């Protein structure tokens, strides 16, 4: 269930005064089972990129392959692709519409043409996966709290049993605990199933914590496509385009400048703490 983009270009409203190149020459391969983070400014093209992955936006030029098949080929089943590459939009709770949560989550499977029993089976499975308690399944989605609505909406996509899950800022507007819960749940999902996860986020800290690989977008182009450590080592370049490495990266650089023998590649608090403890021990040993 790999995704491959070859020289994808996308131009908004071509031929009008509003013409804007949103993506230029995107080449990208996402192998099956990876956890990829996409980061970039508002307007860097990251949302446009994700909408190419399930065919919602058609590239102006270039090709998108899913499992080796060209999705723009004649007769390619776009609806099947959309159930295979599940896309969770920003503020996904704004798409809820049914009388109760369970029926809403069934909407995706129903569109896949499954039997009502199968729909419900998949829906309950998805609701369990996102950790929404059973007592809420029969309530109206509009009565849930913000975090619960978000879970229900993500379940709505998971119920289609996609091979790839794309999440566009799934934690926007949630409080810190809510944010951690959703992200932990996604990480858990990724470990449990062999799903590919593509996480679009503004938060370097979150991406550093979860992603195997980070794609940095800037002005419609891929600036970096590498492991978190490698990407954050370019922290000065990231700053030039208005992004930043996680705060710990800066702390480690400062500590090193203050004369401690620490590595500067730590991207999470735990890694940083390990490094510092090590350096402090060495220093004490040598004195």
């Amino acid at each position, binding site marked *: 269930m790999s995704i491959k983009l070859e020289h994808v270009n996308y131009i908004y409203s071509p031929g009008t005064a509003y013409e804007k190149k949103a993506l230029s020459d995107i080449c990208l391969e996402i192998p099956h089972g990876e956890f990829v983070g996409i980061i970039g*400014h*508002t307007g860097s093209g990251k949302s446009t990129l994700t909408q190419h992955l399930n065919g919602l936006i058609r590239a102006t030029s270039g090709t998108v392959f899913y499992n080796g098949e060209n999705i723009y080929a004649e007769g390619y089943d776009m609806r099947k692709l959309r159930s295979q590459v599940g896309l969770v939009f920003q503020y996904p709770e704004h798409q809820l519409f049914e009388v109760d949560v369970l029926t809403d989550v069934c909407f995706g499977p129903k569109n896949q043409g499954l039997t009502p029993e199968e729909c419900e089976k998949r829906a309950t499975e998805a609701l369990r996966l996102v950790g929404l308690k059973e007592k809420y399944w029969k309530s109206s989605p509009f009565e849930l*709290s*913000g*975090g619960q609505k978000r879970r229900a909406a993500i379940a709505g996509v998971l119920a289609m049993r996609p091979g790839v899950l794309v999440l566009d800022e799934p934690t*926007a*507007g*949630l*409080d*810190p*605990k*809510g944010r*951690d819960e959703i992200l932990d749940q996604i990480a858990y999902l990724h470990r449990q199933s062999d799903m590919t996860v593509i996480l679009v986020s*503004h*938060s370097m*800290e979150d991406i550093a914590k979860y992603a195997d690989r980070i794609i940095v977008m800037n002005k419609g182009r891929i600036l970096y496509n590498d492991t978190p450590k490698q990407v954050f080592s370019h922290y000065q370049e990231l700053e030039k385009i*208005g992004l*930043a490495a*996680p*705060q*710990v990266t*800066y*702390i480690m650089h*400062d*500590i090193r400048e*203050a*004369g*401690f023998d620490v590595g500067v590649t730590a991207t999470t*608090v*735990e890694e*940083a*703490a390990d490094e*510092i*403890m090590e350096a*402090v021990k060495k*220093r*004490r040993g040598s*004195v």
Partner: protein
Amino acid sequence: MKHNMIQTEKLIFEYEKRDEEGNVIGTSRAIDEVDLGIEEGQFIAILGHNGSGKSTLAKHMNAILVPTGGTMWVDGRNTKDPQELWNVRQSAGMVFQNPDNQIIGTVVEEDVGFGPENLGVPTDEIWKRVEDSLKSVGMIEYRHHSPNKLSGGQKQRVAIAGVIAMEPKCIVLDEPTAMLDPDGRKEVLRTVRELRHRKHVTVILITHYMEEVIYADRIFVMDHGHIVMQGTPREIFSQVDTLKSYRLDVPQVTMLADELRKRGLAIPAGILKKEELVEALCRLN
């Protein structure tokens, strides 16, 4: 005693819970006997997770909600007094979370003029205020723009200008950054900090982003309708585990310092900036 900008006494706010037919089946307390005093000219932050009651409290400061029990005074005026309603709203201006849903005008300057128009300010004075407010949030060059074409951070700055133009004594910002990207967040906070120095207004910032409150004079933490912690940022951030139990977070540097202390290093509690951590580490030997 110094005159308090905001004062509450056993403030209670109860929602009615209804069943499917719309019958009242009980009440739920969003705010439960809160006593709070905010001095004039301070920068106050109110923290809490979603549903902790912090937004409900904020809406009382502008008399959008009135207490179901207890009392709230804004600049010495009881918010329950209908005669004082407009004075309360004029003295405590409010900025909301969603940048789109609080801009009324279709042109930036007309939106900023909306408040003064409602107050019956003479035309020439409105123009002066609009210009002055837009300058103080750094949006004067956008005065003829349509709000729809602005970024989230810019929209919030326009909303702030709209409140300043009413010349309030106190500005209440109810999660003004929750829907913004990191750039927008920084932009809005910078504006708020600058404003405070320039206009000497009391600022009350409601948020769940911890990085935003390290410059506050005083922090209140809310949970389940109660104020559960209060103090300076340093006092609050020195209690990492307590904060976590209230579903809150601390900046990474505070978390790292806390982690190191747990692992046995002699680092003081309540580290807020990375320079402080480096200094503490250097002092270790």
